[in-house]
């Protein structure tokens, strides 16, 4: 029990720290754009989606129509559909309280720790995921609060290179999971396609490059097993 809690906390800690500049930015940007402190905090407490929050703050400040705002939010959040689908078989037989709480915490960051074939199996692994996801939620809201209170006195921290820390953490998580040739080819395909999609500003680039890589992996794996 204790081990699951500690491991969840320590595994997520690097990401909790690495997203500090963006949490602060979400808080300070919201206040600068006319949100009350309570509304700014509620964005992180309820919406809890970094990139969607940043885009939404700017859209709300520009008095964008609600439907446009919600469609944009959906486009940015569409990748979470894939995360839910990927862990459906592991989660669907669990009670509602586990499914709803894990779903609420199901960010990119938590999904990064969901790859293990026995993830979410048994109380301890569920608790691990809950602690990891929950600690990220607490950290994100704490950074937002700092941004709300002190944002105007702080310099922009997003250009300090902490985005490299996020990349390094994801590298640390993805490289050990590349154990077969199909997985390697899937990753290379996703890497090349996301670069092309980013350069041409394709909005569904992340999910499209993931699906392309997954298709390559699937085909190679199936081919490997047939021969």
């Amino acid at each position, binding site marked *: 029990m204790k081990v699951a809690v500690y491991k969840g906390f320590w595994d997520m800690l690097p990401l909790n720290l690495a997203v500090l500049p963006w949490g602060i930015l979400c808080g300070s940007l919201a206040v600068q754009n006319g949100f009350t402190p309570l509304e700014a905090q509620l964005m992180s407490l309820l919406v809890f989606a970094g990139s969607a929050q940043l885009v939404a703050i700017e859209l709300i400040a520009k008095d964008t129509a609600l439907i446009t705002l919600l469609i944009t939010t959906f486009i940015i959040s569409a990748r979470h559909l894939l995360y839910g689908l990927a862990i459906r078989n592991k989660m669907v037989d669990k009670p509602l309280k586990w499914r709803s709480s894990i779903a609420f915490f199901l960010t990119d960051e938590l999904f990064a720790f969901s790859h293990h074939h026995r993830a979410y199996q048994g109380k301890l692994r569920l608790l691990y995921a809950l602690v990891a996801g929950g600690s990220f939620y607490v950290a994100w809201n704490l950074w937002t609060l700092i941004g709300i209170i002190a944002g105007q006195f702080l310099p922009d921290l997003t250009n300090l290179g902490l985005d490299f820390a996020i990349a390094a953490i994801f590298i640390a998580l993805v490289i050990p999971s590349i154990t077969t040739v199909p997985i390697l080819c899937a990753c290379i395909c996703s890497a090349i396609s996301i670069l092309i999609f980013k350069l041409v500003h394709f909005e569904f680039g992340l999910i499209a490059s*993931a699906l392309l890589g997954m298709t390559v992996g699937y085909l190679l794996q199936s081919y490997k097993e047939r021969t």
Partner: protein
Amino acid sequence: MITTILAMACVTFATRYLFLAKQLPFTIGPKLQRFLSFSAPCVLTAIWVPIVFIQDEQLALSVHNPYLIAATFAVILAYRFKNLYITTLGSLVLFYLLY
């Protein structure tokens, strides 16, 4: 404003919860499960690769790009040690030496 925030929260939660809903009447067969088994490596790759390879909206394939050099080191560390903290801290030190 509160209504707007609540509406957004519904959208983000719905995308996360939809496929965890029991009421959704479908099961994932072995073929789809195999396809999905590649999702985590592919998504993670699609998140970190642009951070490293794209600077100022341009492809930055240069030895003067500290992100690229430090990320290469991170890949080596991750392959060799398979440890989150060694890879992250080790490559971060190199990154700031170059940055």
